């Protein structure tokens, strides 16, 4: 009979009433979102320790481990005087508090508990004692209006807990003094029973096949089910459940990218004015033709020597340094983030870190990027739109994903150097969470290229890092489905950054020592995916599943195979180094288990306790699936009606004395979601760890502070073993707001924005690579997806644009990913079925080389008296102020929209780079959301200086000139002494000299000699930072 102790950690009497920001912000949250007035709330952490036999003096040990003696005390189930806590409550002004106790559901990753167990084991007498630890958090809470336990439970699930992960227990005030929690302590334990592998009978009717498909979450199409059925008929046997799971995982949209490899027939009609016709054609695979096709063509035409490994590994590898190779990968983690924003984003960032760890022989992550596409609660509240049932409050999603990326990056010691927040109401159905990582690896180690995988038949298969649990089962297939009610809770999970940090450090050390031949990460699909992929190279593998380390017993063979439990890598280890490999893993606190052997049998052979549970022909698994045939037709008028029917009230353009008030518009624009500062969130990411971040997310001067936006992150290669005078620029481009007009233009803008941002900080456009990440609404026709053909056509157009601009810029794609089912289907408050699709979204990440640090340029102006130039078109003939149309009722964007002259544009970037190399450019900043005037203000407001410009334009032209948006435009400042040299280099591309920088801290615009705009940098900064508050 085991014994369970409970230890609660309280502040000591000197600190009982210390101010607690967290508790104050909880009060604010409950008031803001639930209209609940919380009088008093107190957060207290606790630990449960389960042992076989009582441990003498455990209280003393626990106290040393769990408390900070300077400020904390412990209350334990061993204590005589439990009532003292009631006195503390009184001192904190609680009259009759309730208690909300939040613990993890059995089997959910509990990082505090893992660390606590390790800490207890450091005490010499406990070293050999069998113990289990669980952690939890309790909240003493008192509301203005008393709440019953059901209401309190509801409150807890709104903010403090997630019912997929946590259990909430309420103690009402009258029972608090009973201390039941200290007397009957239940330790959360998993009790499940493994089922044996079984045969699946596919010899049934088609409707029954479909039911089987749905019941098992296989997410296969009916054609695929029949393909499997026919295949096993030819083998004259039935598949096992393990085989079905492995096949379903391998063929999931998430892993197989079936839409990107399908044969699509495209046509178009009713093109609005200026929308580029791309003709009618059939493309046999978007990825093959438009993405990889572009890269191969560029590689051949430009004879690029620096593309080391592209498309076939976990990340693209390029040679942008003389000693190290650099790799990049960007992933999405949308569906998991919709269900559990914190865990989803955390596992998203840790997952893409593992992609880098698992590229070639393993690279070391050196920088993260993240882009969130989200909705905002106040939009729905202000416009009285009910958020559909089952969907989370979008602000809670924002808080969760932000914290997830923060913990994931910070705890792994990887700086978050670049990113964006993008807001649109249609991201309320599914948030988009993009996580990217850049890594470095030596070009060679012991004479062998680090970029190559070298698993051989006879190598042992070793799983290392985390253990397998039920978590994440069907993650790969789930993310290929729409978000609907009733998903199994095993699809969400929490990451464990510390286990992964140890695994990553171990991996790099083992690589240096030459202890393995190959490695890959366990991402979506778990062992099935990692072993399955690695076995392709050797052409076979034999797995003994019972040897894999598990979190708890009772897992069935298929679960062991497809579980997506995090922090795991699969290694291919030669037999002669296995002893050294395992020895090092012990020294580095990394758990590893040998689970099989690679061979060249042509089969993935899986056994459990000596019984064969799967034997799959690798050719059937990876090569037999025929591409889908799909049709796309582009006609924007065929779009299904929007789920929000009501008209959204907006103000009119602000006027002053009958004229447009440009100053007011500028300040209004600064406060809009897609422009305003998110510094308070971004500064919670460590963006400088590793001491190599040269250009940081914010810039400015010491006098004003560093709060003006930078265009891109720049990472110094020296601290990473690279050149002392070499750096990398990381930039992103994303503009889903353009999709509703034309996805070709959207994609063109996104690529150009990424490239432009990188060019602005000093990257060489001829040493730059791109990464594409598509997040699309479902483009497959079904009765609940009537406008699928349009969405597919939009996909084709975006991809064609990627091809065209990539070729024109001579910039190859080196990696990419697509997520194709970003829809929510549910009910609104009237029980009507609704569907929310994300706007077609493409994130483009650019990584460019800055071959000398002296080229690095930042966005803020540097001196007074410098000349301010606009590079790019003046856009007077267009009506393309997208942000104005979001903001005001009487402004509408109109076709034609400004398209790029891509051939000319890349020439322009080359010339800017040349000017930067010649030290002719003092500052540069890209013009994006909000247009030219926004960018001018941003350049000024991080300094005590100002900008004065003079124009000669009428009102219509002015609006176009100041606020129109497009691509390809940059503002730079140049010292007067360099005027000639600068103009010489950029005369073909510079549309105008706007004015000059001043010392008066204001932006001042004259047109026809009349002042039309005057605003101080301080006022701009104040509006820009309207939501920032104290950092």
């Amino acid at each position, binding site marked *: 009979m085991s014994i369970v102790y409970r230890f609660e950690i309280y502040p000591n009497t000197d*600190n009982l009433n210390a101010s607690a920001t967290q508790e104050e912000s909880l009060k604010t949250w409950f008031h803001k979102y639930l209209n609940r007035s919380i009088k008093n709330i107190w957060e207290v952490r606790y630990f449960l320790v389960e042992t076989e036999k009582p441990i003498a003096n455990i209280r003393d040990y626990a106290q040393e481990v769990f408390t900070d003696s300077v400020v904390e005390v412990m209350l334990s189930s061993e204590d005589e005087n439990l009532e003292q806590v009631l006195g503390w409550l009184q001192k904190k002004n609680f009259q009759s508090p309730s208690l909300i106790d939040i613990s993890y559901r059995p089997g959910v990753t509990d990082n505090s508990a893992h660390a606590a167990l390790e800490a207890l084991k450091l005490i010499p007498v406990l070293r050999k004692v069998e113990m289990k630890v669980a952690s939890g958090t309790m909240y003493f809470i008192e509301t203005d209006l008393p709440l019953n336990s059901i209401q309190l439970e509801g409150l807890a699930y709104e903010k403090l807990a997630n019912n997929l992960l946590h259990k909430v227990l309420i103690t009402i005030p009258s029972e608090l003094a009973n201390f039941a929690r200290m007397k009957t302590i239940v330790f959360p334990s998993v009790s499940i029973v493994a089922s044996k592998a079984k045969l699946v009978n596919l010899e049934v009717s088609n409707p029954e096949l479909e039911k089987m498909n749905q019941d098992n979450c296989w997410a296969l199409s009916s054609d695929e089910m029949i393909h499997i059925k026919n295949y096993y008929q030819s083998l004259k046997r039935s598949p096992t459940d393990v085989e079905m799971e492995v096949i379903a995982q391998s063929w999931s949209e998430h892993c197989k990218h079936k839409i990107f490899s399908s044969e699509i027939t495209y046509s178009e009609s009713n093109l609005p004015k200026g929308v580029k016709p791309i003709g009618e054609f059939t493309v046999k695979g978007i990825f093959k033709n438009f993405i990889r096709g572009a890269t191969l063509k560029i590689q051949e035409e430009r004879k690029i020597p620096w593309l080391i490994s592209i498309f076939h590994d976990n990340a693209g590898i390029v040679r942008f340094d003389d000693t190290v190779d650099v790799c990049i990968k960007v992933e999405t983690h949308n569906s998991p983030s919709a269900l559990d924003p914190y865990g989803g984003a955390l596992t998203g960032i840790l997952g893409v870190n593992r992609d880098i760890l698992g590229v070639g022989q393993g690279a070391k992550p050196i920088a993260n990027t993240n882009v969130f596409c989200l909705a905002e609660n106040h939009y729905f509240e202000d416009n009285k739109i009910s958020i559909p049932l089952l969907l989370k409050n979008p602000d809670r999603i924002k808080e969760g994903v932000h914290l997830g990326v923060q913990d994931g990056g910070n705890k792994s010691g990887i700086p978050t150097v670049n990113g964006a927040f993008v807001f649109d109401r249609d991201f309320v159905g599914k948030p988009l969470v993009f996580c990217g990582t850049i890594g470095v690896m030596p070009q060679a180690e012991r004479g062998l290229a680090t970029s190559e995988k070298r698993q051989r038949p006879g190598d042992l298969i070793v799983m290392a890092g985390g253990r397998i649990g039920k978590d994440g089962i069907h993650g790969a297939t789930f993310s290929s489905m729409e978000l609907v009610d009733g998903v199994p809770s095993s699809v969400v999970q929490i990451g464990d950054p510390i286990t992964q940090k140890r695994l990553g450090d171990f991996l790099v050390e083992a690589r240096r020592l030459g202890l393995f031949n190959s490695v890959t990460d366990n991402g979506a699909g778990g062992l099935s995916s990692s072993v399955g992929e690695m076995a392709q190279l050797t052409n076979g593998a034999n797995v003994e599943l019972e040897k894999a380390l598990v979190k708890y017993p009772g897992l069935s063979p298929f679960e062991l195979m497809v579980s997506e439990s995090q922090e795991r890598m699969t290694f291919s280890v030669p037999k002669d180094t296995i002893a050294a490999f395992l020895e090092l893993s012990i020294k580095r606190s990394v758990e590893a288990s040998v689970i099989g052997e690679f061979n060249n049998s042509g089969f993935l052979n899986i056994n459990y306790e000596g019984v064969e549970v799967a034997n799959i022909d690798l050719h059937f698994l990876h090569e037999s699936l025929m591409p889908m045939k799909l049709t796309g037709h582009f006609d924007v008028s065929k779009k299904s009606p929007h789920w929000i029917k009501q008209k959204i009230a907006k103000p009119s353009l602000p006027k002053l004395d009958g004229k447009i008030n440009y100053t007011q518009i500028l300040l209004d624009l600064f406060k809009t979601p897609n422009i305003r500062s998110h510094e308070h969130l971004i500064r919670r990411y460590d963006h400088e760890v590793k001491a190599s971040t040269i250009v940081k997310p914010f810039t400015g001067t010491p006098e004003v502070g560093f709060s003006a936006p930078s265009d891109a992150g720049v990472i110094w290669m020296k601290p990473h073993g690279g050149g002392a005078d070499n750096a990398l620029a990381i930039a992103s481009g994303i503009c889903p707001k353009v999709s509703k007009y034309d996805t070709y233009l959207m994609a063109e803008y996104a690529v150009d924005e990424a490239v432009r941002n990188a060019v602005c900080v000093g990257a060489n456009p001829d040493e730059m690579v791109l990464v594409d990440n598509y997040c699309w609404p479902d483009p497959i026709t079904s009765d609940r997806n009537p406008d699928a053909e349009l969405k597919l056509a939009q996909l084709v157009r975006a991809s064609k644009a990627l091809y065209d601009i990539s070729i024109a810029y001579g910039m190859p794609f080196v990696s990419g990913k697509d997520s194709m089912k970003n829809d929510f289907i549910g009910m609104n408050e009237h029980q009507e079925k609704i569907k929310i699709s994300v706007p077609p979204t493409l994130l483009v990440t650019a990584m460019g080389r800055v071959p000398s640090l002296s080229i690095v340029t930042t966005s803020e102006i540097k001196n007074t008296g410098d000349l301010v130039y606009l590079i790019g078109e003046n856009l007077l003939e267009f009506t393309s102020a997208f942000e104005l149309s979001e903001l005001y009722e009487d402004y509408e964007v109109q076709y034609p929209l400004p398209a790029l002259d891509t051939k000319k544009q890349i020439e322009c970037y080359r010339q800017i780079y040349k000017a930067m190399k010649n030290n002719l450019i003092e500052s540069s900043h890209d013009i994006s959301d909000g247009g030219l005037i926004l960018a001018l203000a941003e350049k000024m407001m991080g300094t005590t200086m100002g900008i004065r410009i003079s124009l000669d334009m009428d009102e219509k032209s002015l609006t176009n000139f100041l606020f129109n948006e497009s691509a390809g435009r940059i503002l730079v400042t140049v010292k007067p002494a360099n005027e000639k040299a600068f103009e010489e280099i950029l005369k073909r591309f510079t549309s105008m000299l706007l004015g000059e920088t001043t010392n008066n801290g204001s932006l001042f615009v004259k047109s026809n000699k009349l002042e039309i705009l005057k605003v101080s940098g301080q006022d701009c900064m104040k509006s820009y930072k309207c939501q920032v508050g104290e950092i």
Partner: protein
Amino acid sequence: MKRSDIKVLVITGDGINCEEETALAFREHGVVARIIHIYDLIHTPSLLEEAHIFAMPGGFSFGDEIGSGQILALKLKYSLGSELKKFIDSGKLIIGICNGFQALVRLGLLPKPFTTREMTLTHNRQGHFINRWVDLSVPNSKCVWTKKIVNQTIALPIRHGEGKIVFAGDLKTQAITYEILINNQQIALTYVDDVNGSYQRIAGVCDPSGRIFGLMPHPEAAISEWLNPSGAKKSDAVGIGASFFESGIEYCENNF
């Protein structure tokens, strides 16, 4: 002793993550800095005997679970406690940066080794992690690590969630503890502004000897002006952070 003979041990493992740049910051000054995994150090404690400087870098040891630096401190206490005492007693230098500072404090080595703990580092007033550059004053103190920049105002990045210094006891006791540190010249670094709620804006303290130093800001992330957050200041010049390492190394040159 000669600079090239000075040996620095930079500890790593279990979630420490600033070991590379910390070692680099030392190496830039011509000393031998070795990054050593905590497991290897525990199993080869003689390495400590040979070293002159023990550096505990920043990071998230054990994921900051239970309390930042807490578990790392326990690990060091139970597996290297006596070796560390010997190291300190022999007059050698220790620097703890950020998480390393937190661990030194939890280990009881700061502000005064081998006495009852009276100081801790806890959650920032704001309740969350912060990464920003802050202005710092360098008071005249016993600290051997700040000798080259005494009385200057400098800027360094902070990157922490638990950097608020709190003393034990009631307000009066706290004031007395602070007074003692002031009188002993143990306050080695203070924030110009109140950035995290730290007692009297303390950013770094040393032990009474001045040889053990802990600070929350990151000097190793400011060893080059390329890392300066101001675009106008980026250059090939050496950054102010280098002065801390130079000071410590100079002490070794002159005293060992």
